[in-house]
């Protein structure tokens, strides 16, 4: 591609990025009705979508587009800002703009009637802007900036209903946990900058970039003239992963995501299912070369563990959004696992497919919640409208929603013919292949992933069966017969549109062979393993056979017999229900610990530091008082002595000065008398 097309591509991408910012600024700065901005944002995001498609077409399977400008200079370091679009970022750009546009349209109906709607559109605009910026930027510093901005807009959106206590606690928690991850990211940036003196992604991480030139020599990580102990390479990888883990809700920083479900469902679907949480995976994809084998192993282990843990928790949750949230965590764990085992392309592929079907799951759930909420408002019921225990039989009322959600659930399970089958099997197969080369214990990882995918099948089918099959259990509880409606038309259009993306043809014309997917082909530069391995046939067959069995099991539990074995008293059940007690542990150890620390530090500050100052002050005052005393008694005493004697005499004499004539006379005569007497006696003597 020549430079002119490069420039135009960059400008297209830039405009696509800036359009949502325009809606953010425009809506906030132009005063008007509180529900203004819907049309403006949808227009802008659609324009972005259009431009993204253009960019995608231009860039896909073409040389990387990279343009940059001087941004600022510090000392001798020049920092540049620029746009770097390769296959990965073009794909992400397209994905984000597509899903964002659909969610925008969906929100039109879903959020209708909210008193502060303009803020919603503005925040969505800010989010889309930062997400676009995050995927197209070429500098780690800018990436970091957008990374935090994404967190910030997520903060705003989670706390959109800021009068709800849970919402504001959730958004604070989300932001602070993300901040914790950001510190890891920042540490990574510091290490990279110290070692390579640049933060330009294309210089650092492209093929033959700086990172690949750095070598390990005698325990030092060397690049040209810079070197530092090789532990810092591992630390850098871990630090970046820590940042990614926070954003992608991986253990141990996953607890914010379930709470984040306090935000509007459309937001959850866009941010906490499809796009933002995937940013962590995207980051790992961008800086993949920095990770050495130890870090990759850590990533794989944490990914697998998170996937398993979240799936177990999802088994026992009753809040429809929370089940989906844990499912998201679990699926993100799969992606991390894929990154860790070197299946870079599969991770991204799963990111894409997951984005669609998880978004669809959320939006369908949103439709259900929307209707349940209507019901609640209409009859003034005191119920939790997100509790699946109250639902049931909704398939009769909302057939379209049911079908789309079913499709998405099948994709999540990975039934052949869906997009999820392709990507999930890719990850599983590659994980098994990777474990061939690993020693002993690490062979557990792919098996845990296998188990996780079965757990997935169970919890999602439980969700579907409980919500859509059987009878409406709300009737039993309230003793009334309710009926619901299908979701508004606009919402169903969006659901249908998304549902089509859950099918295989969009990703691969061969429904069974993930290697033929154009995404994998476009991204996976290293994958050259053919279908030689036994895993390639064995695993999909095993997974799906068993998954179908599990679905049948849950069908018998939840639909046919209408009741499931009650395990709610078993320790494992409670362990899962309390989300493995992470929240409690964090609250008790870190949050309370920090608060206690801060209070004691403040007490220390007041008592010791300030106390010392005040003590000094008091001591000075004391010494001053002492010297003043000395001054007054000894030095001044002599001077004042005469004066005070006079004063005492004066005071004494004052009593004679009564103003009474007769007193004067008495005194006078007494004096005369004494004079006489003295005179006489002195003479006598």
């Amino acid at each position, binding site marked *: 591609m020549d430079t002119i097309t490069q420039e135009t591509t960059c400008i297209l991408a830039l405009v696509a990025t800036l359009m949502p910012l325009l809606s953010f600024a425009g809506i906030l700065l132009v005063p008007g009705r509180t529900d203004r901005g819907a049309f403006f944002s949808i227009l802008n995001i659609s324009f972005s979508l259009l431009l993204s498609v253009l960019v995608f077409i231009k860039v896909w399977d073409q040389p990387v587009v990279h343009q940059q400008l001087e941004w600022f200079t510090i000392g001798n370091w020049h920092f540049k800002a620029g746009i770097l679009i390769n296959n990965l970022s073009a794909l992400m750009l397209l994905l984000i703009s597509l899903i964002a546009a659909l969610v925008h349209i969906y929100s039109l109906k879903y959020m209708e009637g909210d008193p502060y709607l303009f803020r919603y559109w503005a925040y969505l605009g800010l989010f889309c802007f930062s997400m676009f910026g995050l995927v197209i930027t070429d500098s780690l510093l800018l990436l970091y900036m957008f990374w935090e901005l994404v967190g910030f807009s997520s903060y705003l959106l989670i706390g959109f209903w800021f009068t709800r206590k849970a919402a504001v606690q959730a958004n604070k928690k989300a932001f602070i946990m993300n901040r914790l991850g950001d510190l890891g990211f920042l540490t990574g940036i510091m290490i990279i900058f110290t070692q390579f003196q640049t933060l330009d992604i294309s210089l650092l991480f492209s093929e033959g970039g700086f990172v690949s030139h750095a070598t390990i020599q005698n325990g030092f990580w060397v690049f040209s003239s810079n070197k530092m102990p090789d532990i810092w390479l591992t630390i850098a990888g871990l630090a970046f992963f820590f940042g990614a883990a926070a954003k992608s809700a991986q253990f141990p920083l996953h607890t914010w995501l379930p709470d984040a479900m306090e935000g509007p469902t459309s937001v959850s679907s866009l941010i906490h299912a499809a796009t933002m949480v995937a940013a962590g995976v995207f980051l790992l994809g961008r800086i993949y070369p920095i990770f050495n084998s130890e870090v990759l192993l850590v990533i794989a282990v944490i990914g697998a563990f998170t996937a398993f843990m979240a799936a177990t928790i999802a088994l026992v949750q009753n809040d429809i959004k929370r089940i989906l949230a844990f499912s998201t965590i679990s699926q993100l764990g799969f992606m991390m696992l894929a990154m860790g085992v070197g299946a870079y392309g599969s991770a991204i592929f799963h990111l894409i497919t997951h984005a669609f079907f998880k978004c669809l799951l959320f939006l369908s759930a949103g439709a259900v919640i929307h209707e349940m909420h209507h019901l609640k408002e209409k009859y003034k019921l005191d119920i939790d409208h997100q509790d699946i225990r109250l639902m049931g039989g909704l398939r009769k009322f909302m057939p379209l929603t049911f079908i789309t959600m079913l499709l998405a659930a099948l994709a999540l399970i990975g039934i052949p013919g869906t997009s999820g089958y392709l990507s999930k099997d890719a990850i599983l197969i590659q994980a098994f292949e990777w474990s061939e080369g690993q020693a002993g214990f690490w062979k557990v990882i792919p098996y845990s992933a296998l188990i996780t995918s079965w757990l997935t099948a169970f919890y999602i089918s439980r969700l579907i069966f409980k919500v859509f099959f059987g009878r409406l259990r709300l009737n039993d509880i309230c003793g009334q017969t309710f009926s619901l409606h299908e979701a508004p038309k606009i919402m169903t259009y969006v659901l249908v549109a998304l549902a089509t993306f859950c099918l295989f043809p969009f990703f691969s014309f061969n429904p069974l062979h993930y290697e033929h997917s154009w995404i994998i082909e476009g991204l996976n530069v290293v994958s050259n393993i053919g279908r030689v391995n036994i895993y390639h046939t064995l695993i999909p067959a095993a997974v799906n056979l068993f998954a179908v069995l599990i679905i049948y099991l849950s069908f018998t539990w939840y639909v046919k017999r209408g009741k499931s074995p009650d395990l709610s008293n078993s320790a494992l059940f409670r362990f899962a229900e309390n989300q493995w007690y992470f929240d409690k542990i964090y609250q008790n150890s870190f949050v309370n610990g920090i608060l206690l620390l801060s209070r004691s530090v403040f007490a220390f500050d007041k008592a010791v530091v300030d106390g010392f100052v005040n003590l000094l002050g008091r001591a000075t005052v004391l010494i001053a008082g002492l010297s003043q005393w000395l001054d007054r008694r000894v030095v001044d005493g002599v001077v004042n002595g005469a004066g005070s004697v006079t004063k005492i005499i004066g005071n004494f004499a004052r009593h004679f000065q009564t103003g009474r004539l*007769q007193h004067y006379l*008495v005194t006078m*005569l*007494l004096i005369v*008398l004494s004079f*006489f*007497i003295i005179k006489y006696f002195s003479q006598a003597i």
Partner: protein
Amino acid sequence: MSVEQIIFYVFAAMVLSSALFVVATKNLVHSIFLFFITLFSMAGLFVFALADFIALSQIVIYVGGVLVLMIFAFLLSNKQILDNPKPMRSRFLGIHHLPGIFVALVFFLVLIWTISLVDIGQLQWVKESQENTVKASDNTIHYIGINLMTRYLLPFEVVSVFLMMALIGAAHLARKERKV
């Protein structure tokens, strides 16, 4: 004891007792009339001191002038002066009289002591003044007149001027002030 002596002591007793009554009584008018008696008796004493002119002057000036002045002053001016603004403190030996009594007594003792110590009758100049001593038959007015017009002319004139000043001043002070 001769009659002369008896009469002298009677006069002395009258002077002292009336004077005591003057200071002891609570009624102002009574005390002034008693004061009148005191002055009369004093005049009697002067006679015994062979100063009949002085005795006469005493009666004329004091009794005729001063006392009348006093009484007239009271009568002419506000009558309230005569009744005490507050009832007099009841006891003669009230606490606020004590300094006065004490001083007076001490003074009295000192004076008596002094007088007895001096033994006036044996004083040098008294003894040497045999020639110069007035006899009961002498006319003292003659000498007084000569002395007033010669030796004491200046004081005499000064006193007369002073007397006039005092009279004018008294008249000025005592006149009713006209409110301006």
